[in-house]
């Protein structure tokens, strides 16, 4: 049967090179109107480049773009917007101290004066909000909104510009599970209204749950386009990475030994006088992974920072039975490392690496005073570089070049540099924050394996992650934090995402809340 409708977007043979790097190579794709089309691929596979070409940021070296059956040249964003393409970037393009309304009209004002534009936008916004269940306070300032709402503003911005084709780049990277679910309901609604949606992600679950068709990209090429119902996460993962990938972490039962880290009644007050951690206590034993689950901003970051020596606190923390200093006077990353604590911080780009430094310089941080790196008064940079080469080899860091600056590595490889640095020191306690945030699937698998290997070597691991899946698959015990407190501890085999989700929302009485939960699921 011949298709009577033209594809909303058709790309024919798109190629784009940045110098010697072929970011996109002969890519062809057809996206039918009124569908959700997923584009999946590892970081650096060329997804973002392809979408940037579609949105007029780059000019393709070769190839054609067809929109709704007509060939279209897209030299700039303005043309893309006029062609009905709306883009929701991974990092929002919003003016933080402007109101929602001001952000929405920016660049799409009617006439030189704001008052009539704002009035018109207010009316249209109300209409759009009702139509797509996208309620946002038009007079709220962006900086006062949560990321979930900020994303809605981005979507509204696109709809206000009459976008029929909506491209979302890694939209759930910054969202809580609940916010992500809400986003997908919104996207379903938009689809029903006849909008075409392109969802770029590296999360298999999102692809499986929301898309109609999915295209897989690997190393700049489109390796497959399939109907989502005809494929499986395993198959997609293989297509993405180019080899079989273990989605579940394969691990033996834990063999917990002595208590390595004992935290007692820990309290943290931040610079604004707000108590972020409200008296928490727990233990981490040798040979186990304690996972701390929770929505971002419930005190987990502060906890990691205290243990890592970056923040002051009150209470008591013992390592191997001896207390460590919490006052800030004797506590810093260096003294913590001397006590056998290694730290993979949550934000690798701000705390884990110096982005403008070479890889080999980055591997020295925290360990630069190691005797093996010294040569008289000078540092033995050759020894350092040799060590880095060894880590690059062992952790399969690509490109294998210790002279690359950190910012030129992909997210996954940046994280591997940090993980390698910390794990290779054979710490007694490893603190890991969001080990796989923004990391591609191949690297996730690798990093998870390394964490488990450290555990199996009889070391203690404290894992903080907002990814429930990760917590569930890595942890031997799970503690859930909400509002600075630990709401409860669970064993991964005896709990599920739903129960943990309730704890994360601060509902401790999960037995009583269960009926309600089932009700929600039934809906």
């Amino acid at each position: 049967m011949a298709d009577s409708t033209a594809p909303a977007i058709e790309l024919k043979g798109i190629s784009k090179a940045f110098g010697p790097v072929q970011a996109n190579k002969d890519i062809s794709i057809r996206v039918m109107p009124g569908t959700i089309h997923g584009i999946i691929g590892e970081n650096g596979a060329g997804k973002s480049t392809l979408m940037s070409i579609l949105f007029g940021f780059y000019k393709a070296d070769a190839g054609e773009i067809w929109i709704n059956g007509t060939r279209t040249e897209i030299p700039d964003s303005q043309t893309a917007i006029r062609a009905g393409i709306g883009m929701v970037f991974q990092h929002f393009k919003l003016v933080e101290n402007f109101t929602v309304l001001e952000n929405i009209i920016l660049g799409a004002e009617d006439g030189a004066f704001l008052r009539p534009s704002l009035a018109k936008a207010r009316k249209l916004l109300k209409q759009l909000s009702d139509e797509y269940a996208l309620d946002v306070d038009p007079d709220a300032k962006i900086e006062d909104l949560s990321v979930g709402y900020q994303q809605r503003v981005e979507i509204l911005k696109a709809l206000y510009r009459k976008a029929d084709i909506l491209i979302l780049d890694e939209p759930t990277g910054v969202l809580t599970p609940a916010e992500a679910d809400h986003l997908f309901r919104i996207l379903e609604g938009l689809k029903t209204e006849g909008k075409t949606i392109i969802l770029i992600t590296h999360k298999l679950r999102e692809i499986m749950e929301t898309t109609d068709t999915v295209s897989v990209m690997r190393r700049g090429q489109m390796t497959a386009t399939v109907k989502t119902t005809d494929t499986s996460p395993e198959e997609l993962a293989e297509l993405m990475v180019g080899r079989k990938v273990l989605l579940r972490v394969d691990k033996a039962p834990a063999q917990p030994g002595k208590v390595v880290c004992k935290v007692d009644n820990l309290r943290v007050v931040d610079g604004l006088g707000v108590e972020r951690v409200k008296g928490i206590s727990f233990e981490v034993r040798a040979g186990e992974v304690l996972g701390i689950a929770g929505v971002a901003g419930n005190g987990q970051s502060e906890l990691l920072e205290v243990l890592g020596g970056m923040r002051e606190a009150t209470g008591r923390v013992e390592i191997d039975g001896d207390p460590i200093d919490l006052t800030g006077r004797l506590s810093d990353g260096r003294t913590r490392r001397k006590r056998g604590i290694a730290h993979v911080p949550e934000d690798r780009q701000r705390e884990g690496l110096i982005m403008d430094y070479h890889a080999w310089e980055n591997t020295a941080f925290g360990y630069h005073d190691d005797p093996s790196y010294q040569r008289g008064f000078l540092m033995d940079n050759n020894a350092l570089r040799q060590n880095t080469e060894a880590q690059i080899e062992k952790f399969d860091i690509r490109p294998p070049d210790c002279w690359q600056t950190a910012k030129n590595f992909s997210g996954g490889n940046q994280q591997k540099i940090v993980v390698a640095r910390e794990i290779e020191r054979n710490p007694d306690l490893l603190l890991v924050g969001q080990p796989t945030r923004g990391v591609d699937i191949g690297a996730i698998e690798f990093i998870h394996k390394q964490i488990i290997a450290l555990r199996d070597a009889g070391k203690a691991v404290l894992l903080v992650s907002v990814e429930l899946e990760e917590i569930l698959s890595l942890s031997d015990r799970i503690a859930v934090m909400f509002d600075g407190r630990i709401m409860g501890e669970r064993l991964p085999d005896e709990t599920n995402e739903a129960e943990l989700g309730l704890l994360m929302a601060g509902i401790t009485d999960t037995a009583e809340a269960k009926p309600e939960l089932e009700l929600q699921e039934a809906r």
Partner: protein
Amino acid sequence: MDFLTLLQVLDSTVRLATPLLLACLAGLFSERAGIFDIGLEGKMLAAAFFSAAVAYVTGSVWIGLLAGVTASLAFSVIHGVASITFRGNQLISGVALNFLAAGLTVLIAQTWFNQGGRTPSLTGNARFEPITLPFAETLQNVPIFGPIYYELISGHSILVYVAALAVPATWYILFRTRFGLRLRAVGENPAAVDTAGVSVVGLRFAAVMICGVLCGLAGAYLATSLSAGFVKDMTAGRGYIALAALIFAKWRPWYALMACLLFGFLEAIANRFQNIEVIGFVIPVQFMQALPYILTVVILAGFVGKAIPPRAGGEPYVKER
């Protein structure tokens, strides 16, 4: 201090605040668009010299004004090309322009007029004369209001009134027009402007050009209205004080007016009371003259509180991949 002395000090405040205000608003446009401009001083100086020189040669203050503004605009173009087009460091570009203006004005003045780096005194049509507002003289004898109107409000050069009107105009442009919305956005998050399909470079250049025009007015006012001719380094740090006022005003036009009046007032006080005796001590003239600058430091250090500059300020915009 009697009423008339007070009025005279305030009158002097208005005159001295005018160049500060024009420069401050100039900086406001530029910095709101994300281009820091430490070169206000240099632009004013260049404008002061060229307005005075051309006014002297042509005998027309208006042609002088035009020349001053043109000179200032030329400096703006250099600053724009360096910091917007070539994404250079905005502070370095600004400092370089200040040096350039300081040296170039004196050098040209010396070769042109041979008077030790100054222009000849301006007289007649080569200067802005005070304007007497309607009814000022008739109302002069009305108690309280009369003197205020006659002494304080009337009798300034046209540029003073232009500066005063520039405040509401700036406010209106920034907060009530499309151009203003985009200009503020480009200083906060140029990526948002870029993805909305508006030219970041175009907006920033527009802002820098407005800055040039206002600095030109400020410089011309100094040389052809406040004084009668150009002398070496006649801006005397006013460009920097205007920047201080801008921070004090938190990049807002009405606050800028208040801040500039305050700094103008300090200068007026210093000029008026050069030898005050306080409890038997005679305060040296030098101290009184340094006072506005000292207070600038004190005010900025102590009283501003948290002033948040435009977030993308000082950063050249590079499109990300």
